[in-house]
């Protein structure tokens, strides 16, 4: 039983950032803008929020500091994604290219800023992890569920699940969500009934920026003691989760947890006796999420749920 608790607790460190960032990608793509810049936005969000933690951690610690850092990560991600929105929507540039530009500038800028502003010119931004929750009061004592979800966790786990619920609600149950989806499917039709496509797309990209920035922070906190200008390709992995989840919140949730579970098993099976006894090489586990993605793509490509207008700059005059 302890092993299962351990796997679930570890899985959260993989799954929650993937979930948050993939949901971010969903808002952007659902509005009709491909957001390949998720990786770069994660770096930007992680950079500014970890930098903030680094600066104030002598005076503050614990959940209050983490909540402030979360706000900073989201705001910096939002501002950074504005570049992508401006290029892709207002300037109607190629969305892949502007996204790639963001991916390239983010780590470089993070290294440059860290080196020029931190004492002794280091690029790693150290932080002290005072955010881990040993056990949530009351909830942590519930049998089975307590150790699974409410021990050795971070508030970001619950925040991620909250974001999932809110995302699903916003996308399907609100006027905003309906309009957003319309702009991703058939922007001309949306425009004809008086929806401002540009505004909706800006909203989609900026929401995705805020979530991706937050995802960057969530990714770094449990897995390192400093931020070194990289999120190791998790932004791209989140894109795979988004596709695997077919641009739908609940399926994205399932995909993120599936990816997280496989990643956890692949990297930690040596400490888990019954998995080690199976004798399956870790490479197999590492491959599974990607093979599964391809299989899903192969089966669904005919009736892929991808937003129809995703990736196409909206041009009012086009027919």
């Amino acid at each position, binding site marked *: 039983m302890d092993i299962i608790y351990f796997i679930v607790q570890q899985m959260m460190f993989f799954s929650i950032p993937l979930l948050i960032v993939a949901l971010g990608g969903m808002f952007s793509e659902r509005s009709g803008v491909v957001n390949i810049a998720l990786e770069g936005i994660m770096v930007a969000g992680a950079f500014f929020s970890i930098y903030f933690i680094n600066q104030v951690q002598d005076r503050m610690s614990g959940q209050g500091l983490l909540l402030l850092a979360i706000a900073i990560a989201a705001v910096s991600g939002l501002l950074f994604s504005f570049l992508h929105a401006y290029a892709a929507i207002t300037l109607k540039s190629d969305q892949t290219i502007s996204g790639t530009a963001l991916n390239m500038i983010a780590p470089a800028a993070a290294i440059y800023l860290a080196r020029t502003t931190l004492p002794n010119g280091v690029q790693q931004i150290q932080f002290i992890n005072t955010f881990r929750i040993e056990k949530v009061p009351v909830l942590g004592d519930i049998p089975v569920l307590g150790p699974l979800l409410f021990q050795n966790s971070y508030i970001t786990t619950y925040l991620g699940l909250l974001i999932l619920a809110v995302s699903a609600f916003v996308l399907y149950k609100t006027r905003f969500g309906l309009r957003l989806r319309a702009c991703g499917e058939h922007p001309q039709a949306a425009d004809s009934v008086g929806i401002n496509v540009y505004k909706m797309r800006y909203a989609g990209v900026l929401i995705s920026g805020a979530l991706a920035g937050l995802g960057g922070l969530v990714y770094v906190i449990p897995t*390192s*003691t400093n931020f*070194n200008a990289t999120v190791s390709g998790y932004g791209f992995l989140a894109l795979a989760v988004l596709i695997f989840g077919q641009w739908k919140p609940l399926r994205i949730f399932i995909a993120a947890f599936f990816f997280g579970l496989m*990643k956890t098993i692949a990297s930690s099976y*040596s*400490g*888990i006796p019954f998995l080690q006894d199976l004798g399956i090489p870790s490479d197999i586990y590492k491959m599974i999420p990607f093979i599964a993605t391809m299989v899903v793509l192969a089966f669904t490509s005919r009736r892929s749920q991808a937003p129809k207008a995703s990736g196409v700059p909206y041009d009012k005059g086009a027919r």
Partner: protein
Amino acid sequence: MKKLLALVLVLALALPLAGLAADYDIAMITDIGTIDDKSFNQGTWEGVVEYAKANDKTYIYYQPTAQSTEIYLDMIEQAVNDGAKIIVTPGFLFEQPIFEAQDLYPNVHFVLIDGNPNDGDWSKEGGPEFRTEANAVGIVYAEEQAGFLAGYAAVKDGYTKLGFMGGMAVPAVIRFGYGFAQGIEYAAEEMGLKDLALNYHYTGGFAATPEAQALAASWYADGVEVIFACGGAVGDSVMAAAEAAGAKVIGVDVDQSSQSETVITSAAKGLAASVIAVLDAYYQGEFPAGQALVMDAAADGVELPMATSRFKTFSQADYDAIFAKLVAGEVKLLKDSDVKSVAEIPLKLVAVTEIQ
């Protein structure tokens, strides 16, 4: 008007570049990793800076954009063009670039740390051609001795379930790992212990990743008490896992005790000291031309930083005693050139689980 603007822009770009081309006496070119990797690039850089400041030399470092012999050679060319008289290159990945550079730039001196110049062709019978010209020197460390000290001290301090997480399986990392295993065995024999356990793994990279964190966390959950994190930033992830699990870490290359309270000691190399020694010899006109230096315990090339270590019982006297045995050559250790994998090291008291 447009042309004028373009001209001004071009000049504006060109001027600072021209300004940069000043003369630097000492140049360092980093390997994968940065001058603040808390590991061997940083250790080397600290040596360069310390010597240059004390002796009024100008110095600079170059960070290659990627890892390849061509790019490393380009960086060397740039350093030579910037006036470097002596170039320090940490990392065995420089073996091949220096092999070529020592002929290309006979008037420039090269200090290769963690390797000896060779043509890099390991497919040939008898291995690659090793050749160190009079303008170069190769320095390798007895990492197996540093790893040995760490493993010995950890067991002496009461740890019985240990882990080794290397980065890429490069010779230096392998030597650390083999030494670590043998240090555990040595201490176990001395103390009459048996049934010690060692988990052994190379992550294949030098980055902090959730994968490395998850692996370390799973070992700690499985009862491992201390992990020797031997691969640059991999250590950051191991420390993150150790902090969560309330377990311990052994650092590598340089004293890493300031990075986390969980670091009980570090298997350190005397990087800065040997860089300073060679630079000093060069400026005294006593450059160890064409030599292959081995910095071992006898040459103060390896150590545990006892002043900052967090041992419970392992004392300075214990350390001095085992260190003296290494210096005297009483402990014979197997290296990467002796056995092919950790499983081939004859260990009786330690059960090694190698994870691929």
